[in-house]
């Protein structure tokens, strides 16, 4: 393959990777940046979205859009329950919340395996076909994933900046006491915020299901990557998620192909450590605290 072809191909793959990570990270950034909860189980939320896609879209032939909405609602509600039952009593204690999120991973993964079977399932692509450009072929479904992730990112940005719920969440993240003095119901907003975060995670799962596959463990690898891009871009910053995602996606694409997967992983985690040590607020994060 000629160098420009290779470079274009790698660039595109990096964009696809970036979109995946960004999609997963969008829900996670709400939960982590604003509610300060380290929810490692977000990967399983993602997985459940894919599961809904399998049962509704693939098996029952429900329309893709309806599936997306259904997944967001169903898994979002699960998120509400999870926050109310497990994370709210442990608010402020990050270490215990972390452990409980890991326990949730086990329970969600294993119950899915028991109830739905552990064999990987595939979901047919709702957008089949390819597009020719620059002398290369690009799958349409991946282009759509890239496009949707950009749209959702913009929507998330305005949600956090302008919407009342988003502002309430930011207020809580800065100072819960002051926020409640301003009339913000910290409990309800936290629960709702967590639910929205899970809904986004499920949406990511629905979008990625045709491109990946559906099995109980598909989400586990993506959570850490999502944390990496949130850390890279800056905790609390939506544009940061975009930047972090692009950075990680492209680095992984190039390093993974030109060197090896192991090298790509090392670089990815290495970047996270470097940012944490030398610029903890991230590339686009605001210096506070």
């Amino acid at each position, binding site marked *: 393959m000629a160098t420009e072809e290779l470079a274009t191909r790698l660039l595109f793959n990096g964009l696809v990777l970036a979109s995946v990570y960004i999609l997963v990270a969008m829900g996670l950034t709400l939960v982590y940046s604003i509610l300060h909860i380290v929810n490692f189980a977000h990967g399983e939320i993602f997985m459940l979205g894919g599961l809904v896609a399998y049962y509704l879209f693939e098996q029952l032939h429900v329309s893709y859009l309806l599936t997306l909405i259904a997944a967001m609602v169903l898994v979002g509600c699960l998120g509400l329950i999870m926050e109310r039952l497990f994370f709210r009593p442990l608010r402020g204690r990050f270490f215990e919340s972390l452990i409980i999120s890991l326990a949730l*991973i086990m329970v969600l993964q294993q119950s899915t395996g*028991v109830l739905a079977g552990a064999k990987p399932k595939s979901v047919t692509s709702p957008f089949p076909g390819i597009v020719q450009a620059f002398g290369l072929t690009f799958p349409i479904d991946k282009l759509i994933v890239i496009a949707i992730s950009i749209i959702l990112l913009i929507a998330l940005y305005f949600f956090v900046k302008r919407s009342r719920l988003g502002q309430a969440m930011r207020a809580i993240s800065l100072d819960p006491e002051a926020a409640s003095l301003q009339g913000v119901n910290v409990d309800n907003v936290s629960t709702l915020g967590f639910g929205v975060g899970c809904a986004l995670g499920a949406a990511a799962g629905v979008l990625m299901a045709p491109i990946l596959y559906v099995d109980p463990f598909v989400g586990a690898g993506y959570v850490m990557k999502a944390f990496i891009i949130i850390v890279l871009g800056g905790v609390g910053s939506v544009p940061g998620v975009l930047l972090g995602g692009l950075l990680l996606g492209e680095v992984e694409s190039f390093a993974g192909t030109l060197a090896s997967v192991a090298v790509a992983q090392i670089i990815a985690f290495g970047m996270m450590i470097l940012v944490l040590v030398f610029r903890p607020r991230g590339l686009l994060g605001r210096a506070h605290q």
Partner: protein
Amino acid sequence: MVSTNRNKLIACAVVGLLMVLFPVYASSPYYLYVVTLLYINVILAVSLALLGRTGQWSFAHAAFMGIGAYSSALLTTQAGVSFWLALPIAGVMAGIVSIAIGYPAIRLKGTQFILASFAFGAIVMQIFPNIRTDILGGFSGMIGVPRPSIGRFEFNSPASYYYLLLVAMLFTVFVMHRIHRSRFGMVLRAIGEKDSLAESVGINIARYRVLAFAIGCFFAGMAGSLFAHFNRSVLPTDYLYMVSFYVLVYVVVGGLGTPIAGPIIGAALLFSLVQFLGKLGPYEVLGYGLVLLVVMRFMPRGITGLRISRPRFLKEKQGAKVHAAT
């Protein structure tokens, strides 16, 4: 007062006797194997509790165990070093590497430190299976790691290694006990409870954190060496973050307030739980997750953190008695 001390002493003596005589009454070598593994987990748990005392919890504890395991295996198989020397060196290797992440990461807050330690552990465990696969064995790991020996006597039998580990575990617990009772240990606790306050009193947080981290990882490295020589092999998959997670769970479930009793109780209970859950076959991990969920939800302070109080109606009765007397 005297009687409580005497009771404690008696309890210790009984437990001690049970531990020493265990190989005699254990009904099968399997149980010997399990309890030996438990002792390794106790070493891991108390060493993690030490470095977590300052509030910086490490998700890389298993990776440091791996560093110790590989070091010890390499020294004994490639360099002809005796186990008794390889063991402390393995700890030292882990301790030195821990400074590579511990020092730059001192100022990181809890959530950030956990992420950084996770990343570090991930990097370390990517390196081992991918370099010098001729010596390190790649993903299949190293085999032929020898059991230790003193002169003619080789620690081949399950009972001999059990006693080795019993001594190692007791030694570790003793050292931890001395550390936590010392001024160093008090400072660690102070930093863990309120680091800003400790700093304002003039404590050099960085130095204490790095030191605690290094000591904790030193013992993790030695645990790795003991584990490797126990299994006579080093498998990279044995040192992944899942193991770190299990050790973290021992400490949390045991109770964060007590840095020695907590981890020991947590390790003992959960390790036994895992053995029991093994009978559930495919539902083992699910069972573990559910138990953990319930425990974390209702006993976040862990077992040693439980406040057991008398039931209400008894309290009122006692109050009535007092009033009646007056």
